[in-house]
């Protein structure tokens, strides 16, 4: 995606904040807003939005996922311009899996196809659309980075978050062993196969703790809740943050690191 001519850069975007950020981590949404507004981009939040339908789809309940996904299309079709979303998983749902969810429904498939051309994962939007690899952020944090599965393997978004992080002044990135291996979240999997999920989580957390980093950065709120929930239960001090919080000069994280 080369938007070479600067005058063609979008000046207004629509935020799909995702149901998890909306309910559990609103600060992540605010960080996305801060970062975009700091670049003069107006952020519109379509107020009727809820969820893309992924939880039910992943559990096999397509009859329940379909109307929710169709509603997502309704809400965002009423907007114009790019849709930005701080979750690789939810973007993958729209881009890769609506095709299966709406199989046999040509008009919905067509709508999903057109909408998927407008939706961007947050770091993808910053790097590929805005052409920014350095957000001029200063911090003072020792951190490590977990590559979330859907971002990495469904969307193949990897260089974008990596280059944004590499350009943060004062961020020491410690290498994480098996950083491409799943943390065991997997939505309903974490509940239905709790013991298998926990075994995967413990391998991940052992590797995280071994880095000695104070902060774990990731790009998807589901995985963040999972890893933070596990670290808390184990009594570890490591905090888990969304990459948007690290890249937002105004976030609590960056304010705290400077004080």
């Amino acid at each position, binding site marked *: 995606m080369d938007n070479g001519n600067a005058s063609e850069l979008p000046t207004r975007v629509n935020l799909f904040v995702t*149901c998890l950020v909306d309910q559990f981590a609103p600060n992540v949404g605010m960080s996305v807003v801060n970062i975009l507004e700091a670049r003069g981009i107006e952020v519109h939040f379509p107020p009727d939005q809820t*969820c893309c339908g992924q939880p039910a789809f992943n559990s*096999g309940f*397509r009859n329940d996922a379909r109307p929710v996904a169709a509603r997502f299309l309704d809400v965002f079709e009423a907007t114009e311009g790019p849709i930005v979303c701080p979750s690789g998983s939810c973007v993958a749902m729209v881009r890769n899996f609506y095709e299966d969810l709406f199989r046999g429904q040509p008009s919905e498939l067509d709508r999903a196809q057109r909408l998927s051309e407008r939706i961007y994962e947050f770091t993808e939007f910053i790097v590929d659309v805005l052409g920014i690899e350095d957000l001029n952020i200063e911090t003072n944090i020792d951190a490590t980075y977990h590559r979330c599965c859907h971002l990495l393997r469904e969307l193949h978004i990897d260089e974008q978050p990596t280059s944004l992080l590499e350009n943060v002044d004062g961020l020491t990135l410690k290498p994480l062993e098996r950083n491409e291996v799943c943390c065991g979240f997997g939505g309903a*999997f974490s509940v239905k196969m709790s013991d298998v999920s926990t*075994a*995967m989580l413990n391998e991940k957390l052992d590797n995280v703790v071994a880095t000695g980093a104070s902060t774990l950065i990731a790009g998807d709120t589901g995985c963040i*809740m999972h890893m933070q929930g596990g670290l808390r239960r184990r009594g570890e001090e490591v905090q888990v943050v969304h990459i948007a919080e690290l890249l937002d000069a105004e976030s609590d994280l960056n304010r705290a690191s400077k004080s």
Partner: protein
Amino acid sequence: MKSTTKEFRSAASRALTDVRLQQAHEVVYNGFHKARLSAAGDTDDWEAQRTLGKAIKDHTIANLDYYLDMLATNVEKNGGNVYFARDGEDANAYIRGIAAKNDVSTVIKSKSMVSEEMGLNHVLEADGIEVVETDLGEYIVQLAGEAPYHIIAPAIHKTKAQVADLLAEESRSERRETAEDLTRQAREMLREVFQRADLSVTGANFAVAETGSIVLVTNEGNGRMATSMPRIHVAAMGMEKLVPSAADLSAMLRILIRSATGQRISAYVTMVNGPRAHDEEDGPEEFHLVIMNNGRDRLLRDESLREALNCIRCGACMNSCPVYRKVGGHSYGWVYPGPIGSIVSPVLTGLKDGAKLPAASSLCGACHEACPVKINIPRMLLELRSQTAQGDPDPQQRASGIGERMTWKAWRQGMMSRSRFEAGSSVGKIATAPLKRDGWLRKVPPPISGWTESRDFPAPAAKTFGKMFAERNKAKNGQ
């Protein structure tokens, strides 16, 4: 082989607490997985080779009748016999018939997953025939009375000490210690059996339609011995394991071997072109090819699952799978473990009992990335979840409980309106307020109670993002 896919959860729980198994699983990642990555990395145009592999398999499966017919014609032209078996029972009956007709007393086997599907060993043994596996790993699991743990490394779960015990007991000789001595011991034991076997049963990594050849990939040479020493050779294959031409075979071997063991080429690649011809010095007098369906037509008919027939059984998906590496091969309860097994086993043995297998995935996509023929395994796991949850028109065939169905109905209600979404969030906030500690909960109720067995769960935020953003904008505009 009897399916115990239904017991996935209890079997998985046992494996998770077995320290020795967990150590063995590490070999899968540190050995096979890393070897594959290194072999792929050292191969120019690896992605193009995967694309070619996928194209060859897509084409073959789309024209399966045509190529099976061509294969059968050419095998017969080479002097072999072809038998299309409906299922395992049918295939077993055919092979029993050959054994009976020829007074066979000893059968040797070279690795064949299809014969595991058939449960062939037990059937022949019940007829009083001695059956001996000759792949070292298969031999070890046979001596232990177990099923293969992994499709290319059947005994990866066994320690050296366990192998030493098994071989000492079987040979009634001194217990040996080193890997080298143990291999030599097994070799001596097997050599004797090779010499007196009347009939061999092998698998087929590929069959080549245009030449009527069967291809075996091995590292121990047992495939070559098994296909040349006994008087009768029976090869058993799934009906999807063929390629049109020798050129296609070459392309498939490159990706199969690199993906399986990380080798550029295996120690042996054996091509069998039927029985010994009148001017040839060795080879079997009789050759039979058993081509088995055993439910594969169900995959073929279902467009959303057909891609599973592209599988070339390299094991890369299980080596890359973080779930396989925790639960191990036996938890899956049938012949094929891991991600591809989670598709193939339920379809071949029964969706309702096998419903736990497609659920046993975090959908991380590592299998899709690893597959040499680019099978989109996560997509098919989702498809099977849908079929088992509510897709099957017959409610008796559905694996979902009423509670789960009601939960998703309620979820749907909540997500169909922003005001209900906000209300749900408020209820959650109020209900959890007395229980939370710095924003986290130690215990949550069903249906998500499994989470807090090992992890804290976040309490809903004081305000949804929607509210927070609206209030901020109001304040900003008011200034």
